[in-house]
């Protein structure tokens, strides 16, 4: 706790120093005349408190943050509010775009209104998943990935080089994974395309593959301790030593590492998937102008990106944000080049095919 406060204070101080750069552009002065408010749905710790205060002070725009805890609830809530949402900015993961876009819940992102758009690492801003129907839909802020996390007292780095370890007799009853995410990873393990792009024109083949994967997962069911849902759950399983290794997102694992727990992550050789959290402007947003002002201000300094990484454990999409991290934080949010080469992003194009096959498979595996 004390560490957190210290970091925050430091951030406030330096943010005030760099504040001149932040306050000078004309868009802020214009906004100041407007005042008003901006409504945001986001996860805890995604919008740094210090940044929020500074933004409010400099623009006169009141920032209302509504904390959410998953994508599905944001979707349901927004759907229930249509066609006149109360929200301006939401937090959606890139590969979930399509669901929101098809239900007409998001407005296309006008990147010309964001003077700081080029401060984002192009790996994220210009990636294959980020353009749908010829438009950009969100501002990438944090990147997550599917990793193999392991207790370094119990599992060797070598064993963690392959997803097979997760299904080995040796660790029977000491593993856990998110079943939906694991289906895509097992497809990679078996040499298939977990994004289903390759099977866009061959639905029969896709169904065959999914049947094979489902069979594999059911066979391996006696080995797993828990199918879990949230990051907090796997953290607790590691702390309680209920498991020795598991599939997880990098954010929750990084938080454990930063707290001194003997944990490490790897992107195994068979490969894995990454995803990006983006901030999106809602269709018919009541304060769209303020939303753009907010997004542009948020992108203005890599230090803001670093603050988000510190709080969440996810990797910042900002150029040069790593220089503001401590060594431990750098370690918990970076991977060797050869491992990163195995990573690809989740794609949304074939989501209908993918989830149409996956959701029943998940039910079947759980029921088996």
């Amino acid at each position, binding site marked *: 706790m004390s560490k957190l406060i210290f970091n925050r204070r430091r951030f406030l101080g330096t943010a005030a120093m760099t504040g001149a750069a932040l306050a000078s552009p004309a868009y802020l002065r214009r906004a100041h005349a407007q005042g008003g408010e901006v409504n945001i749905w986001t996860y805890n710790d995604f919008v740094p408190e210090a940044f929020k205060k500074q933004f409010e002070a400099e623009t006169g725009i009141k920032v209302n943050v509504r904390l959410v805890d998953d994508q*599905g609830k944001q979707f*349901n809530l927004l*759907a229930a509010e249509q066609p006149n949402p109360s929200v301006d900015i939401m937090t959606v993961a890139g590969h979930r775009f399509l669901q929101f876009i098809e239900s007409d819940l998001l407005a296309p992102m006008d990147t010309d209104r964001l003077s700081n758009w080029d401060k984002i690492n192009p790996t994220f801003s210009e990636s294959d998943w980020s353009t749908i129907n010829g438009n950009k839909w969100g501002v990438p802020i944090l990147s997550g990935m599917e990793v193999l996390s392991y207790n370094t007292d119990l599992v060797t780095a070598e064993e963690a080089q392959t997803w097979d370890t997760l299904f080995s007799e040796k660790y029977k009853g000491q593993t856990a994974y998110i079943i939906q995410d694991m289906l895509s990873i097992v497809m990679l393990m078996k040499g298939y395309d977990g994004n289903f792009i390759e099977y866009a024109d061959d639905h029969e083949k896709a169904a065959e593959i999914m049947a094979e994967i489902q069979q594999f997962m059911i066979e391996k069911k006696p080995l797993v301790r828990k199918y879990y849902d949230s990051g907090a759950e796997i953290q*607790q399983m590691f702390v309680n*030593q209920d498991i020795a290794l598991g599939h997880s997102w990098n954010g929750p694992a990084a938080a454990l590492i930063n707290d001194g727990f003997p944990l490490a992550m790897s992107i195994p050789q068979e490969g894995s998937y990454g995803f990006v959290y983006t901030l999106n402007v809602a269709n018919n947003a009541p304060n769209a102008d303020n939303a753009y002002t907010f997004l542009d201000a948020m992108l203005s300094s890599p230090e803001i990106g670093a603050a988000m990484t510190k709080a969440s454990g996810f990797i910042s999409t900002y150029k040069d944000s790593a220089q503001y991290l401590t060594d431990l934080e750098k370690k918990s949010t970076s991977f060797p080049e050869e491992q990163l080469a195995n990573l690809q992003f989740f794609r949304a194009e074939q989501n209908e095919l993918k*989830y149409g096959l996956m959701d029943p498979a998940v039910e079947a595996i*759980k029921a088996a």
Partner: protein
Amino acid sequence: MSNEAASRATQDVDAHTRVGRTFWGRLSNWSPYRALMGLVTASPRRQFLILAIFPLLWVLTQHLGPMLQMVRVSLTDAYPVAPGVEQHFTLDNYARFFGDQIFWQPFFRTLIFAGGFTFCTLILTYPVAYFLARHVSRKNQMLFLLLLLIPFWVGEIVRTYAIMILLGNTGALNLVLQSLGLIDRPIPFMYTSFSMGVGIVYLTALYMLLPLYSALEKLPRSYNEAAADLGAGAWTRFRRVTLPLTIEGISSGCTLVFLISTGFYATPVLLGGPSTTTFAETIAGFFHVAGDEWPTGAAFATIMFFAALVLTAVFQKLMNALRKGDTK
């Protein structure tokens, strides 16, 4: 309550209404009030209507309304409706349940678990309620009851995580057992039906305890004494006197617990294992995953709801039969 109390109460009313010095007396002599009362009580029929109109409106608009919305959604093919899409009536969402066996397993598991946990809760809480109602002096009963209620002020999630650090491999229970030398390696309590049961009984105990307590508390102690005078042993007294007279409390406690436990979501998801998926989890999946699954989720919820209701009705009938059989 006795005739003595009744007569005291009537004396009260008597005195106040006639003398007209107190608030009540003045109120009933105040002419606008009398006029109003005259209107309200003109006939028993009017009196009943005035009493009934508000509850009727309330349950129709507030209780039935949301449910009807859900049933309506369950009969459509798309919800929420995207612009430009037309909504159609369909029974497919119900057909989906009956057409696919993978949904039956969590469904029946939920009903069986709910029944089992209800029974466990009853067995565990009955002696507690009995002790409270029969062996604790009336003065202290409220205090002892409040003591049991304190833990329920902690939210479900925080409490569930506390159970995790109780039952985990490095949890408190394993630590204690290890330090006592009873075990060498930690016992994996977590993510089994056992850990799930511990969590669920925690959630349901309150709903069982209160009806049982109020049923036992009403039971005159003299009955038992009379039976004892007649030479009945403790077990016989319990079986022939206490149990039949508290069957109403048992029945309402079990009904409440059963119905509520079919809807549990967070605790089974967090404490259960790979093979304890409940139907609530299945239903919630339809609301988390994608928009066009709302109708399916709503249909499944409707099915679960009616199944639980039918089972409860059967159970109530059974209990009634039991009660009648006993009094014969």
